[in-house]
């Protein structure tokens, strides 16, 4: 059985590790993060995700990722990470005329 990396004996004792669930709604779309759940291992996490997030026919494919495997940016770094992008209008592709017939740009 695959015990997800980052699972400490403390979390194992308290309960099952946390998994992030990504579901692809239909062919051609990318997987989207829907939420998280607890499961003892990857195979059970997939099954739990099927039961919790795709009961109403929401998906054609599921990914589960151990939450502990995700590195997230810190709220403290918000200013240095994201603020500098705000005033650089030339980074947006808004100075072109989009040719007719080009969709999904």
């Amino acid at each position, binding site marked *: 059985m695959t015990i997800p990396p980052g699972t400490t004996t403390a979390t194992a004792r308290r309960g099952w590790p946390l998994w992030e669930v990504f579901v692809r709604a239909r062919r051609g779309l990318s997987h989207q993060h829907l939420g998280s759940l607890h499961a003892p291992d990857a195979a059970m996490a997939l*099954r739990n995700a099927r039961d919790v997030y795709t009961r109403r026919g929401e998906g054609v494919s599921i990914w589960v990722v151990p939450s502990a495997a995700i590195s997230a940016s810190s709220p403290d770094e918000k200013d240095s990470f994201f603020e500098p992008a705000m005033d650089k209008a030339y980074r947006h592709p808004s100075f072109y005329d989009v040719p007719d017939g080009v969709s999904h740009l």
Partner: protein
Amino acid sequence: MSASTTAVPAGDLVRTAFAGYLLGLADDSLILAQRLGEWVTRAPQIEEDIALANIALDLLGQARTLLACAGKVEGLGRDEDDLAFLRDEREFRNVQLVEIPNGDFAVTMARQLIFSGYQYELYRALLTSTDPMLAGLAAKAVKEVAYHRDHAVQWVRRLGDGTDESHTRMQTGLDHTWPYVEELFERAPGVAALPRIAADPASLRPAWDSFIGTVIAEATLTIPQPTWRARGGRAGYHTEYLGHLLPEMQYLHRAHPGASW
């Protein structure tokens, strides 16, 4: 049955046999759905809570289709609600396996393994039934039950091949439920009158044995050798537990006949 039944035209015999067969299948699903529903808010984790409720709802859907059809075949004007909520204990045709209490999670998983393994083979056989309703139901239900079986297999493997405690409990769960296995594969009264319509339960046994045997071996568990066996559910003889399950299941409908949302 008395000798006078031979005087009944063959058409009526088949009709009675078919209604009885459908009721047996329906009651298996209905009663197990009620039992699994008892896990809601009590499962080890909320995710498992949802999984068991999903399985219960699949079974309830199968029961509704089968009960509605049984009512039509029977021809006494009883609809699915009448059959589910207004019959008494002796009129239920389910096997005893589905009515026994949930026990701990291992007992429930042992019962799920046994029953969904059986139902999987049953619906596969019914895919080729000459009755269009049964064949249609089987096509839908076989996919549902394949998932129920997989769910049970996952847990039996993990509990059996887990810690000493989980192994002991899983083996105890199998020991507790195994006396109810034989009844599943017993030729029910009336099945002989329904060639190509019904599935002969005995014919489902070899595939079930092979599949369940592999799972139990992988889980490092042992197939129990019970010293007694359940019998009589299809003829209306039940354990004391069904008598406690029915009032809870039927209370609302009997207290408020015809109530709707």
